[in-house]
């Protein structure tokens, strides 16, 4: 497993390889809490937000919303308490970067949260992890305790007027709680259903108070932005996508792992074939899901020789998205019908049941997939699947419906052969198999 940066100095992954990287001592030896000191030593909250805006940092959870703008939506004059919530409900299939960052470098997250809390005038912050990350809570709590003993969390941080608490909380194992409003419901102790927007969390979030919900990687980027300045951070990446991005690479490559790349890394093919050590067993590349299971699947033909730029804009041009950076590589042995069926079962299992299209749609999709897998496919099923996806996409209450529809739509579009094979009448299929024999 590879851990490290390609094409840039490691920022997020600077300390993860060090011995005892979880401890405050190691963190401080390598520049830890300097950014917080810099902020508390003379930056105003507006300065901090200004730097984050300049950095062109975009939310790393999947939607890619500009972080500085999100922060500036929080009303300054609201008499209500304000909250910073870290979304560590990393549940997207193929994504494991946040777990890695929290496991190896928890203080980086704490520092990021404290700076965010300072910028937004918050005194209470929460780290919400998915239920399966329960073991991380111990690591995070130990780090928070360490920081508290060093006067970095709690009352009068570093002897200044700034006081802030960091709390941890685990979900109960629901993908939907990665959606920020469902996360807030869950954090409040309610059923994990998404809330209606507007009002957005920046206006009425946790307990009805202004709240910013940021992904782990977004918050861990903040200390470096403060240290090097927003502009310098932005220059690491592109105009609209500043800085570096951590990718979780899995699948049929020789060196899966956690990769930090500058935004706008020039060629996806080179990334797979060289940086990731090439295809496992020398097999042919068939497809890549670049941003976690919810994004469009890319066939090899869209990658090889196409110089796909790895940033928000570049991937959209190439027909997919950065998403959460869960980079899944598939070789020629993969049946895309089967892999899509697997993903659809995931979405059916995780649909919260709030709205009609997602609840009934995913249930129906899975039933169709299962029927086809049993050999009872019909040629018109491809059209049925596409039509069901169209009825889900854009009509669901929250983006989970879209996320369930996109992989199927792109899979049928890009890999019609894999579907055709399953949808042929049994007699034709047998005849083809005999002929191929």
């Amino acid at each position: 497993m590879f851990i490290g940066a390609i094409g840039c100095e490691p920022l997020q992954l600077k300390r993860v390889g060090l011995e005892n990287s979880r401890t405050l001592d190691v963190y401080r030896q390598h520049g830890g809490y300097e950014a917080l000191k810099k902020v508390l030593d003379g930056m105003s909250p507006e300065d901090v937000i200004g730097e984050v805006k300049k950095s062109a940092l975009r939310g790393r959870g999947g939607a890619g919303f500009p972080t500085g703008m999100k922060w500036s939506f929080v009303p300054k004059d609201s008499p209500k308490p304000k909250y910073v919530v870290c979304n560590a409900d990393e549940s997207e299939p193929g994504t494991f970067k946040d777990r890695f960052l929290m496991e190896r470098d928890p203080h980086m997250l704490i520092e990021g949260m404290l700076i965010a809390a300072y910028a937004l005038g918050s005194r209470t912050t929460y780290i919400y992890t998915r239920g399966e990350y329960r073991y991380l809570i111990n690591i995070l709590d130990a780090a928070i305790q360490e920081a508290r003993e060093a006067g970095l969390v709690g009352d009068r941080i570093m002897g200044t007027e700034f006081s802030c608490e960091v709390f941890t909380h685990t979900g109960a194992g629901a993908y939907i709680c990665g959606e920020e409003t469902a996360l807030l419901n869950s954090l409040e102790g309610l059923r994990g259903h998404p809330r209606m927007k507007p009002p957005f969390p920046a206006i009425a979030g946790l307990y009805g108070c202004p709240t910013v919900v940021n992904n782990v990687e977004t918050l861990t980027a903040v200390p470096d932005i403060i240290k090097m300045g927003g502009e310098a951070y932005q220059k690491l990446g592109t105009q609209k996508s500043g800085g570096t991005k951590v990718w979780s690479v899995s699948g049929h490559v020789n060196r899966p792992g956690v990769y930090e790349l500058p935004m706008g890394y020039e060629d996806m093919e080179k990334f797979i074939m060289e940086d990731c050590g090439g295809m496992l067993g020398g097999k042919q590349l068939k497809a890549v899901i670049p941003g976690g299971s919810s994004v469009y699947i890319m066939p090899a033909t869209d990658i090889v020789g196409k110089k796909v730029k790895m940033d928000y804009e570049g991937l959209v041009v190439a027909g997919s998205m950065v998403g959460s950076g869960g980079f899944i590589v598939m070789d020629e042995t993969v049946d895309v019908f089967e892999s899509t069926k697997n993903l659809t079962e995931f979405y059916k299992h995780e649909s919260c049941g709030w709205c009609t299209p997602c609840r009934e749609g995913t249930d129906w999709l899975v039933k169709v997939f299962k029927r086809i897998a049993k050999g009872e496919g019909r040629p018109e099923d491809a059209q049925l699947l596409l039509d069901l996806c169209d009825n889900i996409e854009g009509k669901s209450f929250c983006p989970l419906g879209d996320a369930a529809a996109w992989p199927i739509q792109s899979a049928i579009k890009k890999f019609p052969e894999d579907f055709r094979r399953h949808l042929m009448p049994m007699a034709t299929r047998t005849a083809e198999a005999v002929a191929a024999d």
Partner: protein
Amino acid sequence: MTTAESVKVTINGQEFQVQKGAPLIDVCRENGFAIPSFCYYADLALQASCRMCLVRIEKMPKLQTSCTITCTDGMIVTTQSEEIEKAQRGMVEFLLANHPLDCPVCDRGGECELQEMVFDWGGLEERFTERKNYYPEKFLSPIVANDPQRCILCKRCTRVCDEWMGEDAIEAGGRGANTVIGTFGGWLNCSQCGNCIEVCPTGTLLDATYRHQTRPWELERTVSTCTFCSDGCQMSLGSRAGELMRVVARDRYVDGINGEFLCIKGRFAHPFVNHEERLRTPLIRYRKGGKLIPATWDEAIRFTAAKLQEIKDAHGANSIGVVGSPRLTNEANYVLLKFAREVIGTEHYTASEAFSLAPFFKHMTAPLATHKDIRHAKTIVLIGGEPEELQPLTAKQVRQAVRNGGAKLVIINSVPVRLKQQATQFLHVRPGTEDALVLALAGQTDDAMAARKMGVEVGEIEPLRRMIDETQGNVVLMFGGELSTEAQTILAQLPGSIGDEENRRFLFHPLPLFNNSFGVHDVGLMDGKLNATGLLDAAGDTVRALYVAGGLLPAHLQGREQALQNLDFLVVQELFATDTTAHADVVFPAASFAEIDGTYTNNDGLVQRVRQSIPPVHQAKPDWVITSLLADALGIDFNYQMSASAVFREIGEHVPAYQGLRYPLLKDESKPVQAKYQLAGQRAEVADVLAELRQRVERMTGAGDKIMETPEVGHELFKIGTLTGKVPQFHLLAAGNPEPPDVLVSPLYQITIDSGLRRDTAIAGD
């Protein structure tokens, strides 16, 4: 309410001026653009989950749910297009995927919103050929049946349970396609109002007492007024072949003050109408100590008239007492009064009412609040009373005013009633000391004394006063029978002495116990010389005969069991054989509310129609007809020509508050008419009353235990009375059967009523 600014909205190319911030779905529908929806329900929290009400709004990326969009200036909306239709058809297809397509065996068939939606938006053929998810049918309680398969998860039921009833007894469980509506522990532990059944758009929640008995299209539907409490909910009576089958408030059939709200009594306690124990013929007891023997109407009327004439001749007109009932129509009570005054000529007439509102009406200085006013009030002061149990619609309006409207609620009660969950302030007073608060509010005593008598902290009274002072909007003063007549008088004068301000208005909402408590007062039946207990006390002495319509209250008879036996002659009009008829010399079988035309006046002062749904059962006749027949036999023809409308016309001519009212004016239940009550000014004679009240408060011992426990839901609603006793389910609900020890969860044995928490003042209707 503030007047919102008006904005321009373009819908399907037509421009409309609408209120800014109005829900788009309402605006579209009001202007004639049909928008399908399931989960949208006016005045409940938005859900936006059914995704049926999709529209296209210019400059917005996706189709939008019109229920969540509020109108802004320049909004351009399309409600019909190929894209929208495809999406809506897609949603219906999704909803039907796991929904059984066996409407002919579903009890909701014929009045099912999903079924109707499928006629408009469904496909011609089903593309879903897979196995449907299956859940077995079950009972959530003796009166709520549940078929989870049919659920489309619009969650109207969970929202009404939470927002209307404050009970949270029903909630979604499971996730995704496995989500089902369920209860905590597997059975419904609640007041069994059945509103979840009412708002359910499909056959998921069904009335277990009615289902599979008939089909909705076989029912004859009649809009009428509920007979169980003073709220006067409008409801639709469904009858078939002279039998009352069910009572609903579904908005497709009726659109009254209550919307689709009804309580357990209104909805389920109607089987008394066709009960086999209903009196079948007139009965005569020819000699004291003998049996009641069936007789013809002619004979019974002749016999009664002769007896009354005999007693009048022997002992004078005042020896005959006439007792009406706050449960009867205005028509019945008016004709009774006319009979007493003009035919008998007696001064002894009254109604079997629990407490008189006469002092309140005489001195009231602010208008009555309607239920709509309560919903939009800003401050609500509830002194005594227990609307949750005795006026459930009022309780629902109060709860919504607080929860959805941000109103402030102050409760003054000796019992920690459940409504206190919504209260801003709860003054837990000693039983019977509510008067002291009225005295303190009137500024006629120092807070310390009042607080000492009530058993509360001194500082608890001032915030209440301040809250009233600072209110911007309506202040509703509610009170129950706990207040003495003096306190009623002083409270009625209070708004006049405080005075309205530009943004503050006082409104009254008394909480009498019966469906026509206002009516008996209005027609003047409560103005007689003696009240019901007075008449009973004089029985056998100055009062020799009683003519009772509608029965006496247990509270009146308590301790006076002998009184009825002391009478020379007792005539009773009743539905059933009761403790009163046991002593009667003549019993007339009266027609129930479902068999007559008439009017009730509710606690808003709204005069609402009661309409005949079925012909009178057996030989029953409407109360006012019986009285008229008696009058006729005694030589005076009231000349009503068997028409209730003619009686009401006369009421409209003789009762000041009902001036000019006629049945045609009352025909639309969605536009109820309020009686015109005269407001009193500041009255000088109040000084005496005040002195009396002060003495009364000073006499209070300042002792007496507060009840510390919140009564179980339904401790009054489930009370078995003459009428509710005819409903088998009520006996089950009221724990009429012992709980079998080996059954962990049984929907049939669930509710325990703590009768120790019932108060004497609260005599529930029925």
